C-alpha cells in the first residue's frame, strides 16, 4: 500500500477511514522497531499506539507534499520510544540490576555456539538487557537505527561525547558477555 499525500491530508482532518489505512501501513513498517525496545508485545503495541497518535497530531503541522513519510514517522516513533524509556528509566535500571545473572544463563541456554551458529533474534536482544539501559539505547540507536552521535545526544539529552562513551562501553560490555557465553558453551560441550 502506498501512502499518498491525499491520505495524509485526510488523516490530518481526522478522517477515520484514512487513519485506519495509515495505521495498518505504519504498523507493518514500525512495529518491528517497537519490538526492539520491548520484550512484551502488548507493551510494544501500546508504545506504538502512542507513537501513532503523535504522528497523527504531527500531520497538521508539517508540509504533507514534501514529507518522506517513512523516514519522518520512524523518527517520531523512535522519539516516543525514547521518551517512554526516560519515563521508565528507574524501573528499567532496577530490573537490569536484579536480572543480569539470570538472563545471562538464559541467553547461554538459548545460544549453543555464538561463533558457529546463527543466534536467534531474541537471544541477541537479550544481550542488550545485560548492559546498562542507557548504553544499550545508544548502541541500538547508533548501530541499528543509524543515528549519529549528535542526534543521539539530542534524543537522550546527553552530550555527543557522552554518547560516544556509552557506545564504546556498550561494545566492550557486549564483547565481554559474548566471551562469557562462549566459555559457558565450551564447558557444556566438554561435559
Amino acid at each position, binding site marked *: 500500500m502506498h501512502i499518498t499525500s491525499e491520505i495524509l491530508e485526510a488523516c490530518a482532518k481526522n478522517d477515520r477511514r484514512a487513519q*485506519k489505512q495509515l*495505521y*495498518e501501513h505504519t*504498523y507493518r513498517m514500525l512495529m518491528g522497531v517497537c519490538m*526492539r525496545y520491548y520484550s512484551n508485545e502488548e507493551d510494544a503495541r501500546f508504545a506504538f499506539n502512542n507513537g501513532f*497518535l503523535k504522528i497523527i497530531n504531527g500531520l497538521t503541522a508539517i508540509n504533507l507534499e514534501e514529507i518522506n513519510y517513512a523516514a519522518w514517522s520512524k523518527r517520531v516513533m523512535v522519539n516516543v520510544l525514547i521518551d517512554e524509556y526516560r519515563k521508565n528509566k528507574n524501573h528499567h535500571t532496577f530490573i537490569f540490576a536484579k536480572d543480569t545473572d539470570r538472563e545471562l544463563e538464559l541467553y547461554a541456554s538459548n545460544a549453543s555456539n555464538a*561463533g558457529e551458529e546463527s543466534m536467534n533474534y*531474541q537471544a541477541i536482544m537479550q544481550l542488550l538487557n545485560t548492559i546498562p539501559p542507557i548504553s544499550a539505547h545508544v*548502541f541500538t540507536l547508533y*548501530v541499528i537505527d543509524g543515528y549519529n552521535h549528535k542526534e543521539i545526544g539530542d534524543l537522550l539529552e546527553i552530550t555527543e561525547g557522552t554518547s560516544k562513551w556509552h557506545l564504546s562501553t556498550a561494545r566492550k560490555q557486549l564483547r565481554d558477555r559474548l566471551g562469557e557465553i562462549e566459555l559457558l558453551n565450551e564447558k557444556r560441550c566438554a561435559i
Partner: protein
Amino acid sequence: MSWNDQDIDQLFKGAQAPEPAPFQESFWSEMEAMLPAQKRKKVGFWWIISGAATLALLVGGTFLYVNQSGQTTHTLAAKSTSHANTPSVDNKSTATQPVAETPSANETISTKGRFTGTDEASCGNAKHTKNGAIKTTPSDHLMPNDDLTDNTPFRSTTPVAPQAEELVIVDRLPPYGLEFNRTSRFPEKNSSIPTDCKNLHSCMLEATTFPKAPRFYVQASAGIGQSAQHVVGQSDLVHFYTVGGGLYKKLDRMVFTFGANVRVDFTKNILYTTYPSSNTRVDTKYSQLYSFEMPVSMGYEAGRNSIVATLTPGFQTAFSGNQQETQSNVVVRSEQTFGKISNAKTLTMEIGATYWRSLAPNWYAGLGMNVDILKPFNSTMYAGEQRLLPFNGQLSLRRTF
C-alpha cells in the same frame, strides 16, 4: 572467537527481527479510542435541532396561513354589516306602510333616525309621516351610522354570501334585534337564507357552542415512570419530557387530536454490551433516549372537563450516554457518545388515558397515564430483563388556537 567492534555491530544489524503479530482489527479499535473524537458525532445533534426547527416552522406557518384565511373571511363578513343594517335585498322597494302598534316602531322614532337596526320597518332611510306611517326609501338617504361598532362604509356592490351575512347579524345584533327577528312580521323574508340556519337564536347557539373549524394545539409534558428494562439493584425510574403540537378538533362533545412530539427520556439502567474480541468488552450506558411520537387521541368533553384515550406510536431516533471499553478487566476508554440505538426496535407504542381540565379559555391541564405496549429493548444484549407493561404518568399543559 574474539569479537571486534565490526563483528558486534554486524551481529546486531543482521539479526532478523521476528515478525510482529499480524494486524488485527482489534488493534485499530484500541488506537481509535486514543484518537480525537470525530466531529461527525455532533452532526446528529444538529440534525435533531434543524429537524425540530423545520417542524416548528411548518406547524407555525400552517397555523398562520389558516389564521389569516379566517381573518379574511371575518373581514369580508364584517364589511357586510352595514349592508345588513340597511334595508335588505328583499326590502328595496319604496313603500308607505301603516305603522304597526309595535314597540319597535316607537323606539325607532325615539332614536331620531340614528339607529339603523335590523327592524325592516325602521331601517336607515325610514321617514315618518304625519299620520304615523313610515315611508321607506332606497338607501340614497342613508344616514351615517356612528353607533355601529363597525364603521366600514357601506358598499352595496360587495358580494356577500347570504350565510356569512346572517352570521354577522347574529354577532352584531342587540338583544332586541334578536327578539324582533323571532317575532318578525315578515317570515317570508327569511326564506331566502339557503341553509338550515333560519332561526337566529339557534344559529347563534350553533356558532358559539359547537365550533366545527379545526384548531391547533401546542403542548408540553413532563412525566415519570418505569423503565422498559428491569435491572436488579438499579433504579428503574425514568423521567421524560415532550414538546409538540398538532391538530385539535371538536365535533359536538367529541374531541380529537392528532399531533407530533419530540421526546427525551432520562434513564439510568439501559446498558448495552458488546464483545468485539475475546478480552474486550464495550459497555454503553444510555443516559438520554430521543424519540419522535405521533399521538392520536379521542375523547369526550363535558363542560370544562374531558377524558381522552390516547394511542402514541413513535420511533426512537438516537441516544446519548457514556461508552466504556474494558480490556482484560482494565478500562482503556471512557467517553461520552451519541448515536443510533443498537439492537432494539425502532418503533414504540403507548396507550393511555388523559384527563383534561380547562384552566382558562384555550388553556388546558392534563393528567395522564400510559402503558408501553411495544417494548424496544428486546435484545439479549441489554442488561436486565424486559418489564411486562411499564407504565408512566405525565402532566401536560396545552394551548389551543
